[in-house]
């Protein structure tokens, strides 16, 4: 196993940041930690990268214990923290040289690994890191985290605050890195990115809600789920919330995802009810659950 986590807990005074977390990441796997701000994602990353000591439990990365063998871990992993952590006053090239030197290597030695990404920022290699756009900063940070050819790459919310085009490019880069035998643990608050991982852990309030492949997680959704739409979204949501046998009512873009608490639910009955509330253009259609639906059902 590349990463082994067994019963890890971390407390800050009264706050339980992580509670009894256990999972494993296989070599070469792209594993996603999916959860909102405050779920404990960064705390877990900091424990695994030896920057924080857990209160309970044990964890190892590429066979090294996160507490006892912290120095070995630091040489074997790459870490891209959530906040941009490169030197703003150094140029692109200087940052990369700096990180290579720190790890006792050279940019040339592992250039092959970063080439794909680096060529995109190379035209700006004499620009200070602080003057780069968000997407370019992110690419530089990834290069710096890779320059010593780590076995495991930790990416803490790499796509937060990044536009859809750069996000898509970033995930394509991760897929290519995976081909080069790098194990990747990546966190994100965006549920739509979960589908791009081999396996995911859904995490909230320091607890893991579920771990599986994205496809399996969606399949586990326990109820039939319906797309409901009508002419007035606000009134529709209110009416569905007042409908006695509702189990969940969640707006999803132009639709509301509705589940009923009864097993013999008949959509016609709901339609009649909504009509009685003077809603127009009512549509009720069966749909498939998304990872976000599953997350909300588990977090309820």
């Amino acid at each position: 196993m590349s990463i082994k986590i067994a019963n890890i807990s971390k407390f800050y005074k009264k706050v339980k940041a992580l509670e009894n977390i256990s999972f494993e990441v296989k070599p070469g796997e792209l594993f996603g930690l999916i959860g909102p701000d405050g779920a404990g994602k960064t705390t877990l990353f900091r424990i695994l990268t030896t920057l924080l000591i857990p209160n309970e439990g044990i964890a190892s990365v590429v066979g090294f214990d996160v507490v006892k063998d912290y120095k070995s871990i630091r040489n074997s992993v790459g870490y891209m923290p959530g906040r941009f952590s490169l030197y703003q006053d150094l140029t692109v090239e200087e940052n990369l040289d700096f990180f290579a030197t720190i790890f006792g290597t050279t940019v040339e030695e592992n250039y092959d690994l970063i080439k794909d990404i680096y060529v995109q920022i190379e035209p700006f290699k004499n620009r200070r890191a602080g003057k780069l756009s968000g997407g370019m900063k992110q690419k530089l940070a990834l290069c710096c985290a890779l320059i010593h050819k780590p076995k495991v790459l930790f990416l803490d919310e790499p796509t937060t605050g990044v536009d859809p085009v750069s996000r898509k490019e970033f995930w394509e880069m991760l897929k290519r890195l995976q081909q080069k035998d790098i194990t990747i643990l990546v966190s994100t608050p965006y549920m739509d990115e979960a589908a791009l991982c081999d396996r995911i852990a859904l995490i909230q309030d320091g607890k893991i809600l579920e771990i599986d492949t994205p496809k399996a997680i969606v399949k586990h959704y326990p109820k039939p789920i319906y797309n409901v739409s009508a002419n007035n979204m606000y009134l529709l949501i209110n009416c569905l919330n007042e409908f006695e046998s509702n189990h969940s009512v969640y707006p999803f873009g132009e639709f509301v995802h509705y589940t009923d608490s009864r097993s013999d639910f008949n959509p016609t009955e709901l339609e009649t009810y909504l009509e009685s509330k003077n809603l127009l253009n009512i549509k009720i259609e069966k749909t498939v659950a998304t990872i976000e639906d599953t997350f909300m059902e588990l977090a309820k």
Partner: protein
Amino acid sequence: MEKNKVIQVEGLTKNFGDFTAVNAITFDVKKGEIFGFLGANGAGKTTAMKMLIGISNPSSGKANVAGFDVQTEAEEIKKNIGYMSQKFALYDDLTVKENITFFGGIYGLSRKKIKEKSTLLIEELGLEKVANSLVGSLPLGWKQKISFSVSLIHDPKIVFLDEPTGGVDPITRRQFWELIYKAAHQGTTVFVTTHYMDEAEYCDRVSIMVNGKIEALDTPKKLKEQFNAEDMNDVFLKLARG
């Protein structure tokens, strides 16, 4: 200004030296509409919004917001709009009540009115237990809901939301959108900038900026049809990647 249009923009442009950040954009926003203002990083969203809220002067073109001209009546605009962003929202070192009082005061509400609004807001959001807690000690999702409600404290005609719900858990996020629907239902116009496309799906209409220009503007449904796309993310990728 036409009666039901609360934002009217015509040929609005902003140059920084040789660089045209916003290039002659033209659009209208109707009363009570939820309008999504999208674009990639660097497309010109923030610059355009700064002009609309009266804190940056246009190089050329016209814009009328809440009945006032952005060039000549910027101060009036500021009084008649609400603003909320994830970066700047509430003061962490003040309590919930103190924040409400502070922002009420800034917008010139009377003490009596502030007290009324404060009670109402705390009750609506179910914050009775934390009304005297420091905002810094509350979960992000709560802060955002309070922040949104505070941005409406002076009953503005329009509220500008700058990437409001990043990072919030999906349930809280939906509660947040329910607040937005409610405000819109009561006639407040909601202008949202975001680059999260699932958020775009909640809007009545959406505009997409690419390199300073508005390249698409319609309902999410029609945009998906127009670009033969599965979702707004797909629409965005097709537009921005050309």
